[in-house]
Structure formats: structure tokens, C-alpha cells
């Protein structure tokens, strides 16, 4: 049964005069106004400019090199050394070419917002931006008001073309963002807590009251995932085709959506939580718990990879930077912490309340709380975040979820009265790669991409904290010898289990107490035996080591004739 949709779109746009600001030729990077006071730019001489551009190219080349060159000093095999040297040379050349392409050949330029004079960027309102921008972009700024269907959550497909919106009271809608067409809307007549797109716009999963369901683009229900239970949050791992869910009882489940196989089912043991995010860099799922800890999970282990204490109170939201090194967490104590995930240290603490966090492709952080949204940006690339833009919505609009739209300078906001979209210049990646995500995809291209991504589907074992370790040599870990205490503890534990074994109740006169006692003694001896053997072995080896005196060391050929002196 379909409810009529009230498209009471309150438009913030004003029909701007057709003034399109032309690009200035030497703006190659994202230009943002600097912090509190706009510094006057010092005059740059030609030499310094050239140095600047060289440094820029070096930076870019470093990015494309993906790490340091291999050290070929220790390679003794001349053939291998020659081959590796040729390879390293090729890498260097390709990194340089890629850097040049980035500088000269990319079709689009990024967005920017610069304040002039005494105005600050965070004072600039959306209306004034809409006035300055072209019509097509100003169309993307709107509020959709749907007050009776509950707080809305959103999800975008990876190319930013389609959006799925889910209202708490059961409203599911799929919208084509290019044409702002409503493709399909259905009313499932149940609480919907979360919605997530699968690998393309044809499939999405909705976390409904009792179980999550998978729907088609037409709104047909394809699957009911009963094993997941009452799910609070859903996340899709793109490369692995895994649907991760966390349910009311704190159970984390991973399901492979290609074959429907349940890969992992873990009890987190830390209670109910609805803060879950996937780190796009390495595919680990992070959960934020009410004790203030953030745990990171992979589908092949039942213990979390990392458990870190982030906040004194419950973690209210979590977000990952696309480069995989930064994580933003916010707690109830009105603080946002920016963590470096390589060292697991706090880089920055911001005094800002956030109920929801999201990083954009260019590293802008959106924090939403109440009816106020703050966008933070690091201007110099030094991971020092400061306020960039703000947006306050009408009072009564409680922000539920903020989500940046990929490849666009748009922030989608799901709130209690519907959803909105505002313009954030400089947040999206201007140049997409057709083989990764194409906003202008045709259906043929979509089908091809689906087949290729299925062929490249990664097995769940490839999820690890450092994804660059695939294909490298695993250094054998030196096993630490268990201490005496540990060994004794193990022995005690073994004896306890042996004592606790239940014996079969024998009848017909075979159940004599003496026999039972001897059997029990035998079981305990059997449990003790391996430890005693180990002890005697160690004693012997230590004795042997003491015996060999370095003074009477014989040459290797005569060692077998050395007589063991009897002590």
C-alpha cells in the first residue's frame, strides 16, 4: 500500500543570474580560506614559485609511489637484483607520469570557498552560496519535509547517483539524484532502523523491526535475512560483498551476499550498540560501545582486532577518513577526537558535540547535532581540523545522519522531518575514475562492472589492519616460552578437568567404589603425563647444555666421537 508522497519541497534556491565564475588558471588544488584571520599573501618570486611547484610534484609522486622503494643492497642473486632494479625504475616512471596526468589532464577542478575581507567562511549561509553558483548546482540544495514518517536515514551508492532514504515509520524511497526523480517508494509498515545499498543501485537492504530484508530496485522483497535478528545498523563491504550487521543483542554478523553464506557470527560481549562503521581502506568494521571503547573486527576472528578506550562515556558516533589513517569519534562529553590509526593516538580533540559524523572524499568532517551541522576542514593538510562551514536548520529538525555524497560537493542530511541537501564546496572528489565508480553509468556498463567486481571479489581472509601486507613475507614470530607459572597453571587446569569427568554408571555389580577410584586416579595421571614428560625433557636438555664445555670443543668431524662424561 502506497502512501501519497508530499513533496513539500521548500526551496532555498534563488534563481541566480547566469554568472559562472571562471576558474583562475593556477588554482590546481583545493583553495580554502585560512582560519581566523585572512592573511595577506606575500608576493612570490619566480624562483620560489618554481620550488613550490617542484615540491608539489614531489608530493604527488610520493603519493603515487605507494611507499618506499625496496632496498636492493641485501639481494645477493644478481639476476634477481637486476630484475628488481628494472621494476623499481618502472614504478618511478609510472608514478611520475601519474603525477603529471593529475596536474594537467584531469577534466574537472575541485570546488572551493574563499572568504574575502573580514568575512569568515563559517558565517556564510547556504542562501548566499546558492546565489553565487550555477542553476544546476543550486538545484541540489533543498529540504524534503515529510514530518509524519519519522526520522530518516540515507545511503548513497558508491557513485553518488542514487540515494535510498528510509523513514523510521516504514517509508523506503529510492531517488535518482541526477534527475531528482523518485524511482520507487514503498511502505513496509514496520520500523526501519537502517538502510544500506549493496554493490549497485539494484539492491538495497533495510533493517526492519525483526529482521533485515533485501529489496530490488522495483521494491520487490528478495530476501529475508532471518539469522541476523533485529538489526540496528547495516554496512556493506564493497570489495568483499559482505553485509555486516549489528543487532539489538550486540551480535555482529557477516553474510556473503553473492552466495548467501554466513561468514561470521560473533558476540561482541559489550552490549547493545548502534554505532557501526566500515573503514573503507582496509574493510574492518568498527563498533562504538556504551563503555566508551571502540572495537574493530574482521570476519575471520571471534576476538576483536583492536579494542581502544576512546571516551569516558558512550561513543555516540564514528567516522573514517577515506585514506584509512584517520578516525573521528565523538562521545557524550561534547568532544570530538581525531585518532591516528597507525599509532592509535589522539591527534586532535575538538570541543564540539556530535551525534553523527562523516568524512568526505576530500577529508572534510561533518558533525551534526540537534539542528546544527558543522563542517570541519584541515586547510594545510597537517590534520589540524578547524571550522569551515556551519548550517543550522529550522528548530525542531533533529539531525539523525549526515552523509557526504560521493563525487559531489553535497552533504545529505537525514533528520526527523525528512531529509535535506546542502552545498559544501570542496568536499567531493571532482574527477571520478570510470572503472571505479561512474556517476554517468549506463545499464550496460553497470552489468559489466558487476561481473568484473564479482570476479575480483576478495575472500574474507584479506581483511586485515594493514592491507598492504598481502603478498609480503610473514616474518616468523618467535614464540615466547611459557613461564613456569603458566605451565603449572595449565597443569592445574588439566587436572581439574580430569577430576570433573563424569563416569558411566555401570550396573550388574561392575560399579565397585574401588574400581571407580582407580579409574579416577588413572584419568588424573593421564592428564598430568604430558607436563611431566615436558619437564623431564627440559631437565635433560639443560643438563646436556651444561656439559659441553667450550674449552674442549672438538672439530666438527670428530664431534661424534666425543664421549659424554658421566657426572
Amino acid at each position, binding site marked *: 500500500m502506497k502512501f501519497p508522497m508530499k513533496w513539500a519541497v521548500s526551496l532555498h534556491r534563488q534563481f541566480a543570474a547566469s554568472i559562472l*565564475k571562471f*576558474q583562475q588558471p593556477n588554482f590546481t588544488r583545493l*583553495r580554502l580560506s585560512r582560519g581566523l584571520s585572512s592573511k595577506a599573501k606575500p608576493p612570490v618570486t619566480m624562483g620560489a614559485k618554481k620550488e613550490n611547484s617542484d615540491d608539489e610534484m614531489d608530493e604527488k609522486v610520493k*603519493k*603515487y609511489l*605507494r611507499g618506499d622503494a625496496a632496498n636492493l643492497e641485501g639481494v645477493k642473486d644478481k639476476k634477481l637484483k637486476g630484475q628488481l632494479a628494472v621494476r623499481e625504475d618502472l614504478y618511478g616512471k609510472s608514478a611520475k607520469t*601519474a603525477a603529471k*596526468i593529475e596536474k594537467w589532464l584531469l*577534466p*574537472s*577542478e*575541485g*570546488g*572551493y*570557498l*574563499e*572568504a*574575502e575581507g573580514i*568575512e569568515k567562511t563559517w558565517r*556564510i549561509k547556504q542562501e548566499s*552560496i546558492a546565489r*553565487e*553558483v550555477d542553476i544546476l*548546482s543550486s538545484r541540489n540544495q533543498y529540504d524534503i519535509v515529510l514530518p509524519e514518517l519519522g526520522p530518516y536515514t540515507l545511503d548513497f551508492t558508491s557513485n553518488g547517483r542514487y540515494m535510498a532514504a528510509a523513514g523510521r515509520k516504514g517509508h523506503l524511497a529510492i531517488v535518482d539524484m541526477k534527475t531528482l526523480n523518485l524511482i520507487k517508494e514503498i511502505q513496509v509498515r514496520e520500523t526501519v532502523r537502517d538502510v544500506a545499498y549493496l554493490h549497485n543501485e539494484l539492491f538495497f537492504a533495510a533493517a526492519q523491526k525483526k529482521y533485515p530484508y533485501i529489496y530490488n530496485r522495483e521494491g520487490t522483497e528478495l530476501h529475508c535475512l532471518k539469522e541476523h535478528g533485529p538489526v540496528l545498523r547495516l554496512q556493506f563491504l*564493497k*570489495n568483499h560483498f559482505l553485509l555486516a550487521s549489528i543487532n539489538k543483542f550486540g551480535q555482529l554478523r557477516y553474510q556473503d551476499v553473492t552466495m548467501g553464506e554466513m561468514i561470521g557470527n560473533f558476540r561482541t560481549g559489550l552490549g547493545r550498540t548502534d554505532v557501526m562503521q566500515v573503514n*573503507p*581502506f*582496509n574493510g574492518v568494521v568498527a563498533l562504538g560501545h556504551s563503555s566508551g571503547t571502540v572495537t574493530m573486527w574482521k570476519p575471520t576472528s571471534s576476538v576483536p582486532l583492536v579494542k581502544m578506550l576512546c571516551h569516558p562515556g558512550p561513543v555516540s558516533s564514528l567516522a573514517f577518513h*577515506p*585514506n*584509512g589513517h584517520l578516525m573521528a569519534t565523538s562521545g557524550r562529553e561534547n568532544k570530538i577526537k581525531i585518532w591516528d590509526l597507525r599509532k592509535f593516538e589522539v591527534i586532535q580533540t575538538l570541543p564540539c558535540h556530535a551525534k553523527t559524523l562523516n568524512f568526505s572524499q576530500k577529508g572534510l568532517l561533518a558533525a551534526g547535532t540537534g539542528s546544527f551541522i558543522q563542517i570541519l576542514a584541515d586547510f594545510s593538510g597537517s590534520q589540524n581540523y578547524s571550522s569551515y562551514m556551519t548550517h543550522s536548520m529550522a528548530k525542531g529538525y533533529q539531525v539523525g545522519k549526515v552523509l557526504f555524497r560521493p*563525487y559531489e*560537493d553535497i552533504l545529505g542530511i537525514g533528520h526527523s522531518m525528512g531529509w535535506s541537501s546542502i*552545498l559544501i*564546496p570542496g568536499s*567531493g*572528489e571532482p*574527477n*571520478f*575514475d*570510470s*572503472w*571505479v565508480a*561512474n*556517476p*554517468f553509468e*549506463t545499464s550496460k*556498463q553497470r552489468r559489466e562492472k558487476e561481473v568484473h567486481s564479482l*570476479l*575480483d571479489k*576478495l*575472500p574474507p581472509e*584479506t581483511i586485515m589492519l594493514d*592491507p*598492504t601486507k*598481502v*603478498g609480503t613475507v610473514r616474518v616468523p614470530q618467535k614464540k615466547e616460552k611459557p613461564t613456569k607459572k603458566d605451565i603449572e597453571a595449565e597443569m592445574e587446569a588439566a587436572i581439574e578437568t580430569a577430576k570433573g569427568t563424569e563416569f558411566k554408571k555401570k550396573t550388574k555389580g561392575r560399579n565397585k567404589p574401588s574400581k571407580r577410584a582407580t579409574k579416577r586416579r588413572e584419568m588424573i595421571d593421564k592428564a598430568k603425563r604430558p607436563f611431566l614428560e615436558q619437564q623431564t625433557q627440559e631437565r635433560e636438555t639443560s643438563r646436556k647444555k651444561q656439559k659441553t664445555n667450550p674449552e674442549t670443543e672438538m672439530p*666438527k*668431524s670428530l664431534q661424534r666421537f666425543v664421549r659424554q662424561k658421566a657426572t
Partner: protein
Amino acid sequence: MKVKVISRSTDEFTRERSQDLQRVFRNFDPTLRSQEKAVEYVRALNAAKLDKIFARPFIGAMDGHRDSIKCMAKNPNYLKAIFSGSDDGDIRLWDMASRRTVCQFPGHQGAVQGLTVSTDGSILVSCGSDCTVRLWNVSDANLADSDNLSDNSAKPQAVYVWKNAFRAVDHQWDGDLFATAGAQVDIWNHNRSQPVNTFDWGSDTTISIRFNPGEPNILATSANDRSITLYDLRMSSPARKVIMRTKTNSIAWNPMEPMNFTAANEDCNCYSYDARKLEEAKCVHKDHVSAVMDIDFSPTGREFVTGSYDRTVRIFQYNGGHSREIYHTKRMQRVFCVKYSCDASYVISGSDDTNLRLWKAKASEQLGVVLPRERKKHEYLEAVKNRYKHLPEVKRIVRHRHLPKPVYKAANLRRTMIEAERRKEQRRKAHSAPGSIVTEPVRKRRIIKEVE
């Protein structure tokens, strides 16, 4: 304030008409792609598996001879053709595309021991155990107008009779001379019925002969006294000789590096030498389990094919210690001659069971016209497979080859014997004064001495 927002106009990013190609935009930024290494690894694994699925190297057999095939010759001007000579004196010209005999050259009374074609493709020289050398006219015009008769027989242009039976013949790359190997090495001219020059060093028969592709006056021969001799025609006396422990059955010069040649030896190995420095082999290629009978280089100079008495044909890399590929069939018996085709795509083997077999040089290669996108895809899959081929899962698939049971068992036996020998050597070393026993590298071990 200055503001700009990303706004893409649909016309720039989509095609105008349906007959245009779809537009493709690239951004090589690593942050757009996550887990690149794992994706590459999965692609390498799939590429290795696909390679094995498409590996069908055997193309066909050319049937017709009535006795085992002893020698083959390629015409450098005519890609599709190959000459083969058998033990009953039958020389045939085959068309490899249709795998049929184009022309027959009857005449030899005994076994045909050597075949070679002049560089301009006009003369075929054959020598046999009936002490004759026959020259045949095989220019293109002659062969092109072969009529509807399926076996055309041709008459020899010249027949030269000499004193002893011949064992091998080879034509100079850039001139008019050819050399025969028998009791001694004779240099002939096309028009003279007697050898122009004779070389003799040592008292044993020379069994194979090869001219250098880069330097037309240098040739290498191998003799029954386990030696490899280098001759220079300008010097009128043999240049250098290296004596090994076992006899060399055949020699092939590297067409891209003409100072290097590879010798196919009776002790199941092939030894690559630098002709300027014969005291040590450059590389030892080990994988056969029985005597290597023939060897031929690919025109790229990067690979060579060997045929051995153990009924297998192996393809080695020019600097690789082990073979990259092995071809065998139940029906193929002892392989006596192999040739690499002039376009580096095919390998032809002539064996004891009177058949010539045509194989692909790269077992999973797609024959025929390959579209540029297909070619790029193949190259990419090859590259990604090579990047991860040392990892255990991929290595297991890439290395796997089915061996016939006798070859497998013989290889295991050889391995145990070599291991045992090595262990004994190590123990001998451990029980003697340090430095008294010196292990020679394999490259030197098989050489007895070098003689000027």
C-alpha cells in the same frame, strides 16, 4: 566571497550519438581504490587458473613419413613451410597451416642426416649417410606453382658425392657457403662439386654443425670425442675447442646475442656458453631425464626449445635453469629434432614415430587475430600473474605440469641420486681439512679442459 561547486554537465561526460564509443575517464589516485594488493592477488590467482584452462598446446601432427624423422630445416623466407628428412631418405616439404605435404624430394639412398636452407630461400641442401650432398631448388616461384598433384616430386639441382657419410649440414647465414660434418668438417660452395676447404682437429666424427648468425665466418661443431670446436673460415685452422665429460648432440646459436650458444648434451643438460670465454658455462639448463637430442632458439633469442630422448619437448628461457614448459604425448616417441618457427609462435618436433608435431610456443595463447583490447587484457593478466607467482597458492597452479609416469619416476630417481652425491660431498668436506676439497660450480664441473 569566491565559491565554486563541482558541477558536471552531462554532455561532457556522456556520448553524443549511439554509434560513438562510451567515454572513459581515469583518475589514478590511490585513495579512490582500496585494497589494491588484495584485488591484484585475486586477479593473479584467477589468471593462473584461466591460463591452465586455456592451455591446449598441441595443434596437430603431420603424418606421411615412413621412417623416423632425423632432421628438419626452416626456410627463413617462407613462414608456413618446413622441410623434414627421415631415415629412409625421404625429404618432404610441409605446409604447416594445412599440415600436408606440399612437395617430396626423393633421391637419397640411405638416411637423410642433415637438411638446411640457404638464407635467400632458394636452395635446400641435404646430406645423408649415402655419402652424397644434394642441392634442390626450392625458391618461392618453384613451390608456388605446385599443381593439383598432392605429392610433387622434384629433381635435384646437383648431387655431389664424397668420401665419407655425412652427419650434419648447415648453411652460412650471409653467403654462398655451406658446411658438412662427417669424418671431418668440409666447406662447400654451391657450384663446386668438391669441398672448398676442410678442417680436421681430432680423430673422431663431427656430429653437428652450426654457423653463427651474427658473424658469417664462424661456426661451431660438436664431435664424438665429447668436444665442442669453434672454427673461423678466414683463419683456415680451428680456433678453440672445449672438451666436456659427455658428448654434445646439437648446438644452437642465440640469434639475438650471437656470441652465445647453447649445447644440447648427452647428460640430460643444456649448457649455454659465451664463445669468447669457454672455460665456464654461462648457464646450465637442467630438466630433461634423458639425452637431449636437438635444440633450437626462438627468433626473439629469449627462449629455446629442446627435444630429448625421453620423449618430451621442453621450452627453456635463455637464462633460466629450469624449463618453463614441457610437451609430451602418449604417441610421441623419442624426439630427434625440434625447430622453433620463425614467428616465435610455434614449435615443431620430429620424432621416432614418423610424425612431425606442431605445438604452440605459449600453451594458452589465443591464435589468430587478437583485438587490441584482448591483447592488452592478456598482457595485463600475464603481468599480474608474474607479480604474484612466488606466493604459494599461485605458484602451485603456475608450476603444475602433468608428467608422464616414466619421466616423473626418472626425475625423482635423478634427484635422489644427485642429492645423495651432494650429501656425500658435504660429508667428505666436513671430514677433511678445511679448504682441501673445493667444490666446483656446475657450470665448470662438466668441462674437462679448454684447448686453443
